[in-house]
């Protein structure tokens, strides 16, 4: 469900830029929400007070200018090089690509929508499993010094390992590329959640624990009434970092494992020498990553007390 709605958001965000480029405003920053506000007020701006106008200007002008310069720079660069397609060419290619995102011509030729959904599904499963295991383990590490002592050498050793180094092990154990990619997501996104949760538990003010001690609360009550709510903000930070890592890693993992997915799609387009598509993929990956992050920030905000 979430996967599909995110995907739809991507399209919504991209389509308005058609108008902008044609109007010579040259704004292709589809990730920023400010640019939408920016185009409407042009007429209304006279009605706004001076301070509101100044505020709007300060908020929207720098990002607009930045994006415009970026696109100009890109266009100039593209003019010098014969291999690098310019913004306009890329744009036209994107319009074509997104006119039919869900076509299916067999296992090796699927629409961009399918590729994206497949990647998101892998990330969802790997990340979900990591949360399922990492968060409870984080609680145990934070709560029980013995457990912390037991696990800390292993964690310190495994955490800095580059995500892709885990891929051969996954391929060996699972004998299949699909679970191997999920495994890489799992192992690389588990650490931020585990460690942030554990840190959150140790950061609980002694006062709260003294309340628990005076009341002689059961371990379950301590967990539900004190540990969990106190750790939630830390946990959400971990979750946010983890999803970022997962999205970073999936592209690289899919390049190696193949199958249907945005990472493999990039690799495939490279083999076809379709550079426009590679650039589009970079934008898509960036936008989806940004949306995932924004979405989790929104959830995290709800848990602040």
């Amino acid at each position, binding site marked *: 469900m979430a996967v599909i709605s995110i995907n739809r958001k991507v399209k919504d965000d991209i389509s308005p830029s058609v108008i902008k480029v044609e109007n010579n405003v040259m704004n292709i920053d589809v990730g920023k929400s400010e640019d939408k506000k920016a185009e409407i007020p042009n007429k209304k701006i006279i009605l706004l007070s001076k301070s509101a106008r100044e505020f709007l200007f300060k908020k929207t002008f720098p990002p607009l200018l930045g994006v415009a310069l970026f696109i100009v720079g890109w266009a100039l660069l593209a003019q010098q090089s014969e291999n690098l397609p310019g913004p306009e060419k890329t744009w036209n290619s994107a319009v074509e690509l997104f006119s039919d995102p869900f076509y299916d011509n067999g296992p090796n030729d699927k629409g961009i929508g399918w590729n994206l959904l497949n990647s998101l599904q892998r990330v969802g499963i790997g990340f979900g499993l990591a949360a399922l295991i990492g968060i409870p383990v984080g609680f145990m590490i934070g709560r029980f010094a013995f457990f912390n002592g037991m696990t800390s050498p292993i964690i310190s050793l495994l955490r800095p390992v580059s995500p892709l180094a885990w891929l051969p092990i996954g391929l060996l154990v699972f004998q299949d590329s699909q679970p191997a990619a999920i495994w890489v997501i799992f192992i690389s996104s588990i650490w931020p959640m585990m460690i942030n949760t554990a840190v959150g538990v140790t950061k609980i003010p002694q006062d709260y624990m003294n309340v628990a001690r005076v009341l002689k609360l059961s371990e379950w009550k301590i967990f539900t009434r004190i540990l969990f*709510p106190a750790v939630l903000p830390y946990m959400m930070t971990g979750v946010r970092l983890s999803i970022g890592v997962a999205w970073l890693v999936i592209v690289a993992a899919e390049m190696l494992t193949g199958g249907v997915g945005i990472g493999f799609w990039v690799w495939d387009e490279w083999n076809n020498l379709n550079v426009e598509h590679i650039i589009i993929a970079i934008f898509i990956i960036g936008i989806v990553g940004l949306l995932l992050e924004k979405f989790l920030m929104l959830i995290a905000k709800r848990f602040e007390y």
Partner: protein
Amino acid sequence: MSKYVHVENVKVVFETKNGSFTAITDIDLSVQQGEFISIIGHSGCGKSTLLNLVAGLIEPTEGALFCSGREIDGPGPERAVVFQNHSLLPWLTCFGNVYLAVERVFSRKEDKASLKKRTNDALELVGLSHATHKLPHEISGGMKQRVGIARALSMQPKVLLLDEPFGALDALTRANLQDELMRIVAASGTTSIMVTHDVDEAVLLSDRIVMMTNGPSATIGEILNVNLPRPRNRLALVENTEYTHLRSEVLKFLYERQAKKAA
């Protein structure tokens, strides 16, 4: 029951980076049932340490503590604590904070309706019925402290331990809460031990004032009996010679015999 709470030859040594630090030593104290005791002394002399010992939050290095004939071997709801900084759980409402305590103490014998009634009664006692469903960050400092008091009282503890319960409050709120506490404790007959910095507060509320010497290795310097009749009225006491005398006794102890050298 002349020795309801009994502290016997207690010494507390903290192990720190710079070696061991003797906070308090040779503490002997007996508190009768229903008595109100104040502990007063300069900052850092070990008042909280003594209170935390009775609460069971820390253990004595030497000596032993007893409550109602049994050795104290850890904290428990029969010795409720009003913490210096209120220590409310920020994600629970006023009701939720008190209910957590009520539920813990009474849920075995009583149904939900009666637990809720106890919670509401406790909040009403401290005049907070209107703020029942507010979160701690939505109410004032004085109100928070009152919730802390309601939480402690709702447990119907055998001993009420208060660590500078009014320390962070303005003079008006403080006076109101002192009067309320006096009324509640008198009505319930709860044995109470309160840490304070405030001489007037100590004389007004206490049956006895325990005055501590300066640390390190602080101990009980003197115990002052306060034989003022109850109920006590703060306005009437201003004119009372016994009150004035007791007040100056405490002041003399603190500022002549235990004068803090300027650091």
